[in-house]
């Protein structure tokens, strides 16, 4: 479903991403690994259509990926940094808003929260979360919306071992349902457990 062919990113003579290729099929989890500065996040920005490659091309179902395209926005759920969160809504309100705007009538907020063991935070505002809780909530938001491809940038950051295990379970469940997952990751345990393939940059 997603193909990136020899994509690169450069600003003047500065190389942000050397040529890289990637192919992801439905029901597959691909981990992108590599040292800091190797271009993992840049590659994720290219395959989500948020950055045009300097060379090469990124295709979703054979069409160029473009964040302005409705098809791209509907197909890809991305966690690149902190997602937009309203300061006057609680955690539960945000998930209800996700369900309402995607018209997911059968969806359950409690189930979304339980997936990352944050049900107790339902009535908290975003500014009342610790950084680890905020990461869990960001993951809950990303997994709550419908998508064919989930893109995660270092999803394990600020998580303890137990919560990293929950993240692995969420990825495995998404893959089992036929969703594709691409994640840039530094946690070898998570990669070993959740990813079918690994691309080293």
């Amino acid at each position, binding site marked *: 479903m997603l193909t990136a062919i020899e994509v690169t990113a450069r600003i003047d003579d500065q190389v942000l991403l050397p040529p890289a290729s990637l192919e992801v099929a439905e029901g597959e989890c691909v981990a992108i690994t590599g040292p800091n500065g190797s271009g993992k996040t840049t590659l994720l920005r290219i395959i*989500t259509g*948020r950055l045009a490659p300097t060379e090469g091309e990124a295709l979703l179902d054979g069409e160029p990926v473009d*964040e302005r395209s*409705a098809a791209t*926005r*509907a197909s*890809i*759920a*991305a*966690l*690149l*940094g*902190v*997602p*937009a969160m*309203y*300061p*006057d*809504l*609680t955690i*539960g*309100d*945000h998930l*209800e*808003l*996700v369900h*309402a*705007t*995607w*018209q997911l009538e059968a969806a359950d907020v409690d189930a979304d929260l339980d997936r990352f063991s944050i049900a107790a935070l339902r*009535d*908290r*505002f975003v*500014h009342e979360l610790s950084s680890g809780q905020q990461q869990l909530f960001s993951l809950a*938001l*990303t997994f709550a*919306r*419908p998508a064919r491809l989930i893109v995660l940038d270092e999803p394990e950051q600020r998580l303890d071992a137990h919560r990293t295990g929950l993240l692995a379970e969420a990825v495995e469940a998404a893959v089992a349902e036929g969703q594709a997952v691409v994640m840039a990751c530094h946690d070898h345990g998570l990669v070993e457990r959740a990813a079918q393939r690994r691309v080293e940059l």
Partner: protein
Amino acid sequence: MRAPDRLLRELRERPSTSDRATDIYIAVLAVLVFVVPLARWATLQLAPAMARDVGPVHVAIVTAALGVAAVGAGRTRGPVAPTAPYVDWVVSGPDDLARVLRPFWWRSLGGVTAVAVVAGLVVVASRDTWPDPLAAVVLAVVVLAFGLLLAVAWLAGQSRLRLSALALALLSAAAGWPLHDAWAGLGTQPRWWVMVVPVVAVVAMLSARRMVVALLPSRLRTQALRWSQVESFAITADLASAADVLRGRTRRGRGWRPTFGAPALVRRDLIGLLRSPGRAAAGIALAGLSGLLLSPAQDAPTPIIAIAAVALSYAAACYLSDGLRFSAANRSRPPVFGLTPARTALQHLVVPTVLLVVVISAAAAVGGVAASGCGLALLAVACRAASAFKGLLPIEYLTPIVTPVGEMSSLRVLFWVADAFLVCVLVGATILFQTDLWTGAGLLLLAAVLVGFWARSRWAR
């Protein structure tokens, strides 16, 4: 230990002579470039209004608003405003709190007093006849004392002493009567009872030390850090982020899950407003005041009331469009919600548009100018949207523009930041002041549509 010692010494040190000279030079330039022309313009605008009958109640409304604003401002940034390192290294040390914080209090007090003196000069210069000299001195003393009262009210707001703050806000309102009488005495002879204001101001000043000592260092540090962030965002003209820093934290209504039939983001905006009753009340009050001013604005001999009415409507739009601002500021992030950017923007426009149209029109209807109120509300919302959708400051705007009269890039940044507000004020006030009711309403509507297209073009970029 030498490095901390040196840091402490530097933090405590008085500014050098060259620093002081630079400060004085900048202050003189600011007075010549901004204060004098503005004061001159205000004098010309106030002159015809002075010929009309301004009652003590009118003055009391203005002084009460100033008192409340001073208390409110103190909660966000008080007159005692040290830097965060100063709080960490000096205020948190063993020294007497009153002694280490006194310089900041005196500095702010001097600033407020200077502003009061300039305001008093503008008002006196607006008269078309020479005042009685003794009455002029009395007015100057009363205005100066009122400035002191406001400064103490500002400090009371910062120190969160509720009773003191309430008392000072009430005293500010009550000061409207003596201020009016001191003004009225200029044409005849001084009225000595007005000297009660300086007496009250001196008593209030005596409580300042208690208020300074009541300041919590942790709160001073929070204010310092917050303002440092605001300054950083302001330098890059990122006012949306600056507003986010200043915005109060939502704490109410967390368990409230209303279900009512409305599009998802319209419901969100209503919930957001109900959870921030202070913002909602401020927005509605500003909108109501703007509507009430529309009728006098159209009959007034000066455009200053029309300018105030339009500025208030724009401020009300800012208070009531939190959802729009937040959504516009975060539109570059990956989408979580299942709406297109266009539907997101349109849904976020519903609540501020409906509220402003209803409140401003209803208030304007009191003076029989509801149509103008409706037009102004739509113009204010359109300008607010144009401002929210403008995005981040283009980096090339920071490159220097060297002209024979100096470097002008900051002026360009200033215009970029305030463009929608300036359009709102210039277009809105001109139409309100120059045209009759129905022509004005039609032109305001037309202006709102044109600004709406402008906002849309910015959003589409």
